[in-house]
């Protein structure tokens, strides 16, 4: 059992980190009253932009550790920032419907990922439908040097690339900012009641833009982590799958708390791969497919339970999904 946990937990964490990035980003966004259903698309864009950066850098020849990390990271951040700006421009400035905009952006983001992914695969001339960026990826997945010497502790806690620790730090930081600082208080006020925040002299538009764009950049890192660390730099189209949607479901599961999300996303990550560890036997392979449903079934149950719970503090931000216009009558 102990051995099982030592192999299982690191894999669950690996699965959980993209979800953690995604859900933290979405929580920050939703706290500003923007329901960004474009997060799955943003994560795709974050991933492919990182891949494009890494690909271009690897083509240039020499690979230096610092640049190998900085270039894809920067590309990914810029890509998801652009997505965030697009979403804000449509929903905050033009006051378009948030759900429609979000869904369109998901379709758009997945399309962009697959389009550029496909192009790069063609460019690299590989005979498999994927592209491997092993050189840069090695820097992303490099774990702490002394992890290997620490036995099971090292394996469970220290064996991850820097992005995994960054995810946890960002989640803790986001929780702290939301709960304890004035910008956090203002952001919550904007998401609950923009009219109140406006009357109190808070710049609602600015808060919505900044929170949504930051949220998108955080979520985009989830895509980057997935390709560069978890998948060891191998991009194949549609491989990221529906993790973006799970991240959005996690937001509800964690009742809008990034710190709770740290454990919940690892739990969801574990559920996501649980089917590989449940014994089925050769003649009943179809049962495995049923096991793959587990995270989605859990999400459904969670949705039922959370909507039954009626504590006022645990409700979504009151003005979530609604546009704000000061002079509306």
């Amino acid at each position, binding site marked *: 059992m102990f051995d099982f946990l030592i192999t299982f937990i690191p894999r669950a964490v690996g699965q959980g980190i993209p979800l953690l990035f995604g859900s933290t980003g979405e929580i920050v966004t939703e706290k500003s009253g923007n329901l960004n259903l474009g997060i799955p698309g943003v994560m795709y864009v974050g991933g492919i932009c990182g891949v494009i950066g890494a690909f271009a850098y690897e083509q240039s020849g020499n690979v230096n550790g610092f640049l190998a990390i900085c270039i894809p990271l920067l590309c990914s951040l810029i890509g998801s920032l652009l997505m965030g700006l697009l979403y804000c421009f449509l929903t905050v400035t033009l006051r378009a419907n948030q759900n429609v905009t979000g869904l369109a952006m998901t379709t758009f983001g997945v399309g962009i990922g697959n389009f550029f992914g496909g192009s790069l695969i063609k460019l690299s001339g590989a005979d498999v439908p994927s592209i491997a960026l092993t050189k840069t990826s090695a820097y992303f997945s490099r774990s702490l040097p002394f992890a290997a010497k620490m036995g099971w502790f090292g394996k469970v806690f220290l064996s991850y690339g820097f992005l995994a620790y960054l995810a946890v730090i960002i989640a803790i930081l986001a929780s702290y900012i939301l709960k304890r600082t*004035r910008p956090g*208080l*203002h952001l*919550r006020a904007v998401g609950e009641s923009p*009219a*109140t925040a406006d*009357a109190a002299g808070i710049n609602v538009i600015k808060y919505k833009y900044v929170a949504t764009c930051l949220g998108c950049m955080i979520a985009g890192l989830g895509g980057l982590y997935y390709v560069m660390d978890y998948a060891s730099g191998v991009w194949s189209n549609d491989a990221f799958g529906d993790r973006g949607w799970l991240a959005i479901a996690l937001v509800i599961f964690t009742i809008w708390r990034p710190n709770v999300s740290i454990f919940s996303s690892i739990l969801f990550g574990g559920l996501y791969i649980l089917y590989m560890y449940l014994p089925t036997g050769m003649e009943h392979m179809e049962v495995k497919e049923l096991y793959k449903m587990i995270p989605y079934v859990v999400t459904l149950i969670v949705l039922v339970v959370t909507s039954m719970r009626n504590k006022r*503090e645990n409700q979504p931000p009151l003005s979530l999904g609604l546009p704000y216009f*000061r*002079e509306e009558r």
Partner: protein
Amino acid sequence: MTDKNVAVSVKNLSKSFGNVKANKNVNMEIYKGEILALLGENGSGKTTLMNMLSGLYYPDSGQIFIDGKEASIQSPRDAYTYGIGMVHQHFKLVDVLTAAENITLGEEGKLNIKKATAKIKEICDKYGFEVDPQKKIFNMSVSEKQTVEIVKVLYRGADILILDEPTAVLTPQETEKLFVVLKNMKADGKAVIIITHKLNEVEEISDRVAVLRAGEYIGDMITAETNAQEMTNMMVGHQVTLNIERPEPKEPKPRIIVEGLTVKDIDGITKLEDVSFIARSGEILGIAGISGCGQKELLESIAGLQHVESGSVKYVNDDGSVEELIGMNPQDIAEKGVALSFVPEDRLGMGLVGNMDIADNMMLRSFRNNGSLFTDKKTPHDLAETIVDKLEVSTPSIETPVRQLSGGNVQKVLVGREISNAPSVLMTAYAVRGLDINSSYTIYDLINEQKKKGTAVIFVGEDLDVLLQISDRILVLCDGQVSGIVEGKKADKNTIGLMMTRLEGGMTNE
């Protein structure tokens, strides 16, 4: 009057929304150490004018001077720097935050709730407020929320305080408390502007009255030198009679008998407990109570819209036969031949469909009446024309979506439809909420007309003065229980106010 210091002066201020001119060349002055009552009918531009002072709207043209210097107020933040604070009609508070968090909202610098709490305590002591800074807003009563709003404005250092209909939701006792606080502020040299429809409050609290009509500034008067009649005439622009008549009920017979009615909401909280009363024909039964203590549930139980835990609601026909209404839905009730009319509190939510025009809204009540596959559009259209004509609904046309009408006109359309089918029971909830004096009196007249026709009227109201004038009997609810039933003629405001807040305060006359 020479030692008055001008706090704010407004010159030629105008603001339009699309084609509607909300304010036209308004000129007025507000003095320090004075309580100014701003009067006007619905849609006369009072709130728009105040919103321009508080930075929510930006004027199309005109100037604002604060302490003699021209000010450009482009946002609420600017308004705060000029020392203007506004308590809005619909509270601007974040429900899930605490009082202290709400009060400090929008401040710069590091978040320090402890320091803020100390400052809040100081303000409360100075003016006589009671606020628990750690309490969350959603746990608060309406009057507590209002106190937080006022403290918030003072905390930001406002010297000019604007209150938009602050007493609309308060009990008489809470209103008294508020007025004491306002007088303290006045003594402290602050300028206070209060918007209200209740003329008796204007007389009680204000030093000066300013009147707006159709977006224009009409003039001002010293409160002590005027009276309610003169103020109303100035507001409306012509002579209005301010008496609500109360004709003697003609041979009242029991019409609705409610016995032991108990209602619980979804969360299992008791909303009505063992409520019993009789509503008689040709009589107005007023229902008083703090908002949200069971009035809505009571009316909806009778109308067949509310799940009832126990008890009975009986309808007595003219021939003496009795129908039990509990367990029936509105359609069943109508099919039984019970002519029940209901003017709900939520006009555009439950009463009318906002995006449909007046004629189509008439159809909502009658579309089942003809048996054919196609709807009859002519009858509702005619009815709509009659109502617009008779009740003087001001609307561009019958095809105008009701959403675009002003509150008073929406209410006229709704009441007109409900009384058009000659009801034997008429229930109204807050029939004049948000309506100006002129529209209110039209509605009172309509209700009295029904009473004379022998309709049993159940009138849920919030303005005790009106309840006392119009009702033959008043049933007082307190926390879902009947705290007593009093004769309209013999009752006085204070007793009812007390009965609204505690059960023991009540006395039963029946």
